[in-house]
């Protein structure tokens, strides 16, 4: 989905960071020397568990937090020395939609457009247009305090787009949303990148979100980028798909394992069958089916497990993303109780 462009990552609508560090006085190194490059028009997914450094990175790239070391250019401007220029080029929907519950959607748009210096005559048109685009026209005159989580996120997105930014930062935009709201937001983000050429920097802790939406993914853990590439590249890097077959007749289990063994080293599974990593990739699946059929084995179930980004995270950090979330929560709990983490 990334646009072809001669611009480099730090060009008119790109993002580039070199050795970006953020240390807090009494805390850990939240971001520990990040290098990244996002091309104009690209959707870049920044994936990692809670506390990995995603939001701190976004705060630095959006000029809200000065880096301790390193440099970053957003939209061609340095985030430290050219803050106002960076802010005029970007829109951001930060974690937890920061909205005023006492104002309506329309009033939010009016305030946002005025603060961005949009002329009085244009404000209403821009506001109405964006509210319609995110599906909030009907609720525009209702106070935001009565909005659902999904509606708040959509309004947050509309506000971030008020001044037509070339670069959009979305910090965990779908956290806590139901699948319908999540899908609607994904569609809008895809449309922004595809039709408007907006560069999107999206942080998420959802594997499927990064997988579905991002052109490229950076996986961050403990403040460092541990892997980067397209979802397909990352998955290919760590291995090939696995096929698992369970015979209808349990007596044929050994025979099933023998047949699967013809495609690689076969392992027994807990599901009364066998599994094998396909050396030739998923294209070998048809051959597996034909071989089992030729051997006269009736199959109860056949599953193809493609490597997931969680497998990538596991391979790079030794933990699953879910496990990392739990460990992080336990560590925070222990810290809160004063016990050694």
């Amino acid at each position, binding site marked *: 989905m990334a646009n072809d462009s001669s611009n480099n990552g730090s060009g008119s609508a790109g993002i580039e960071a070199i050795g970006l560090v953020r240390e807090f006085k009494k805390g850990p190194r939240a971001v520990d020397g990040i290098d990244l490059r996002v091309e104009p028009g690209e959707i870049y997914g920044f994936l990692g568990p809670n506390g990995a450094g995603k939001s701190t990175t976004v705060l630095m790239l959006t000029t809200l937090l000065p880096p301790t070391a390193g440099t970053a250019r957003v939209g061609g401007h340095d985030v430290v020395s050219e803050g106002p220029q960076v802010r005029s080029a970007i829109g951001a929907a930060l974690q937890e939609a920061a909205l*005023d519950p006492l104002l309506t959607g329309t009033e939010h748009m009016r305030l946002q457009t005025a603060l961005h210096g949009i002329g009085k005559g244009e404000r209403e048109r821009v506001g109405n247009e964006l509210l319609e685009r995110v599906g909030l026209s009907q609720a525009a005159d209702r106070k935001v305090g009565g909005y659902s989580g999904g509606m708040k996120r959509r309004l947050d997105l509309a506000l971030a787009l008020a001044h037509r930014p070339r670069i959009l930062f979305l910090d965990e935009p779908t956290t806590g949303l139901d699948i319908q709201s999540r899908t609607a937001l994904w569609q809008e983000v895809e449309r922004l990148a595809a039709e408007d050429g907006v560069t999107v920097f999206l942080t998420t802790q959802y594997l499927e979100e990064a997988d579905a939406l991002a052109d490229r993914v950076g996986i961050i853990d403990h403040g460092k980028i541990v892997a980067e590439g397209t979802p397909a590249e990352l998955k290919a890097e760590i291995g090939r798909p696995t096929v698992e077959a369970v015979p209808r007749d349990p007596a044929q289990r050994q025979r099933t394992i023998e047949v699967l063994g013809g495609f690689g080293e076969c392992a027994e599974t807990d599901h009364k069958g066998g599994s094998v990593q396909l050396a030739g990739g998923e294209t070998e699946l048809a051959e597996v089916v034909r071989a089992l059929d030729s051997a006269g084995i009736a199959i109860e179930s056949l599953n193809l497990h493609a490597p997931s980004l969680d497998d990538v995270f596991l391979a790079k950090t030794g933990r699953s993303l879910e496990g990392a979330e739990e460990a992080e929560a336990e560590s925070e709990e222990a810290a809160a109780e004063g016990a050694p983490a």
Partner: protein
Amino acid sequence: MSDGLRAQVGQLARRSVLRTLRQPAQFVPALIFPLFLLAVNSGGLKDATNLPDFPTDSYITFAVAVTFMQGALFSVMNSGTDLARDIETGFLNRLALTPLHGAALLTGLLAGSIVLGVIQGVVYLVVGVAGGVEVAAGVGGAVVLVLLSVAVTTAFGTIGMFAALRSGSGEAVQGLFPVFFVFLFLSSSSLPLDLLTTDWFHAVATINPVSYLLEAFRSLLIEGWNAGELALGFGIAAAIFAIGMTAAARSLKTRLVRT
């Protein structure tokens, strides 16, 4: 003021006013509580008018000045709590990502205090007059009373904003209320300065600027037009405003850490 800055101030002021008017739970107590105390005090302390040299024979006319001051103290809570909530919820970060001018934010936020000051001033005056308050300076004096109420409310509002920007916590702002109440208590709120016979109390009340704000209100209510008292009252309000606004502007720079 440029068009852009004017638009920013206008929209932020509009938001501040809307927030004030849409939170009756915030401004109604600011109206009722001081009036309740006025009713209690003017009933219980009316014999104080028998003291030699007491400036009026209507204690409610003397006491209503305290009502204006108590109302102003509520503005510290309102402006400060609103701003602290913006910090806590991240709304200030949203504003920080726009080309927002710091002066526009502070000025816009004060609009809510100004509206509250007008509402309070008018309500206290109307209820007070209905209850027997006399305004020696006449209708013009009543208008100046409301203006003084707005000036004091706005001045105290800057202190609320400073506390919010400094602490980033609504609870810390609310913690200021008892402190201000002590200032009000240690002033000429119950008796005129000349009639405070306890030495230490007289000394404290004499250096307490709140006493001179009260005297400014009372001059219009009891004496008529007293340029000196009014100048002192408006001057102290202006000084509090200048100090509060400067401190708030400095804290805003620290709070808005954008590069």
